[in-house]
């Protein structure tokens, strides 16, 4: 029977060359489509089988691991007796079970421990970390860091960060400047959380950009991580060639109100990039840098619109009262609507008798549109 089938296929193959071209093309396409369908279907089946096996393994091992953690950590008698975590020794019998030597079990163990660590801090959190170390799971995580696959590296960095295990600079610093944006972001966040003395050292070598979303995440980590060493960020303002790092440092300087950084920030007013200048002006305003006010007003005329608006805002935030006439002039004579809005808000922000008198005077002398602007800015229900 097989012989007949082979003969038939051979005859078909021999006749294939004598068929019209469009039949040959159509036939080839059909064969390719059938092969592609078979490949795709096999791949789907294989993936499903893998997921099924994984699920089955998880269902088998997770309750065991949970029992182990409950016995060794949550219900640990020594913990409730007040014994320091470092002095607590785990029962070696359950920990030496052969099943915990298997790589996939160890990975599930790490995942479960991390899940517990996310929910518990204090002594329980520290004992979970001790269990991770005593079971030598750190080795598994560090092994993953050596692979070439970036997603496995990310997993390893997250595991070590969650377990608060220090990573040497030689290993982590190159990752903070990885061309892969995901790996880079994870490594940078890990560096801030794990480095005790210089959490921002990677700023020195960063040539890859700090993306806006990563800045948000990093800002959250910096402001929520306990006992983080906050350096003087003016160092990177002066020396870093990475624009995104400088922009981020400007935000941090404003957040931590680092007034010593004012001279370095003022140097950025000479920068050719006007977006950069605008950020520096904004930072000076937030720092209430009265020393910079005279310079800001001096450069005002030659700035593009975004910088001019930032200068008006900064003058309002500094609110020294020395430049109320300048603000009044911009409110009354500028032809640009946004400039007049910013100038009005800046005058109101001064919150002094002088500024109130100016507002009153302008209200009585100016034209209708300006009066509407002033009323709008004075409305406490409208956020500036």
């Amino acid at each position: 029977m097989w012989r007949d089938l082979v003969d038939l296929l051979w005859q078909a193959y021999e006749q294939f060359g004598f068929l019209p071209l469009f039949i040959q093309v159509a036939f080839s396409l059909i064969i390719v489509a059938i092969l592609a369908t078979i490949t795709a279907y096999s791949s789907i089946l294989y993936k499903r089988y893998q997921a099924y096996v994984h699920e089955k393994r998880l269902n088998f091992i997770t309750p065991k691991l949970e029992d182990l953690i409950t016995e060794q950590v949550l219900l640990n008698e020594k913990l409730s007796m007040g014994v320091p975590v470092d002095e607590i020794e785990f029962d070696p019998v359950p920990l030496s079970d052969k099943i915990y030597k298997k790589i996939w079990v160890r990975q599930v163990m790490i995942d479960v421990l991390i899940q517990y660590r996310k929910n518990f801090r204090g002594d329980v959190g520290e004992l979970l970390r001790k269990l991770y170390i005593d079971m030598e799971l750190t080795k598994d995580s560090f092994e993953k860091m050596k692979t070439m696959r970036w997603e496995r590296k990310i997993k390893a960095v997250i595991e070590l960060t969650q377990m608060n295990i220090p990573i040497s600079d030689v290993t982590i610093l190159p990752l903070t400047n990885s061309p892969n944006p995901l790996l880079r972001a994870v490594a940078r966040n890990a560096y801030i959380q794990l480095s005790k003395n210089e959490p921002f050292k990677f700023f020195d070598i960063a040539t890859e950009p700090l993306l806006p979303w990563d800045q948000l995440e990093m800002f959250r980590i910096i402001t929520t991580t306990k006992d983080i060493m906050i350096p003087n960020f003016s160092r990177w303002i002066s020396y870093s060639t990475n624009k995104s790092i400088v922009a981020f440092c400007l935000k941090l300087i404003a957040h931590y109100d680092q007034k010593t950084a004012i001279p370095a920030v003022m140097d950025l007013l000479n920068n050719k990039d006007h977006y950069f200048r605008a950020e520096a002006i904004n930072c000076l305003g937030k720092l209430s840098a009265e020393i910079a006010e005279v310079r800001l007003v001096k450069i005002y005329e030659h700035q593009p619109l975004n910088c001019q608006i930032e200068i008006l805002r900064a003058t309002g935030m500094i609110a020294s009262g020395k430049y109320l006439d300048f603000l009044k002039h911009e409110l009354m004579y500028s032809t640009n609507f946004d400039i007049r809005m910013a100038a009005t808000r800046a005058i109101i922000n001064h919150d002094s008798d002088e500024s109130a008198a100016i507002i009153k005077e302008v209200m009585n002398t100016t034209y209708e549109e300006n009066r509407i602007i002033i009323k709008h800015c004075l409305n406490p229900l409208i956020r500036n």
Partner: protein
Amino acid sequence: MANILVVEDDEIMLKAIKNILSKDGYNVILAKNGKEAFDKLENADYDLVLSDLMMPYANGLEVISRLKNDPAKKHISIIIVSSVGNEETITEAFRLGADDYLKKPIMAGELLIRIRKLLANRAIRHSL
């Protein structure tokens, strides 16, 4: 022995809290979401509800609201255990009637102390 209903969608946390509270001598009943919690609250009397905020079907705020608006159940104390830490949500939880708020990650010892204290205050109120 006080009856405590734990409402939490994270199974690991659910079991962990059960183990911690059971060890301290409480009778612990578990619910995986707000809807399941409502069913269990209908069928038994509880002294305290320990609830997460972000859950499927009905969130923690709905659980508090439902409990505190039911005259037969408004006496039940409520502790919120959640990773949500923004002031608005915490204020809203207290406004609706939550008695305490613990932010995840929690400390097991602190949880037990707060529960003991709430139940003790409740017992004093009852005896007056």
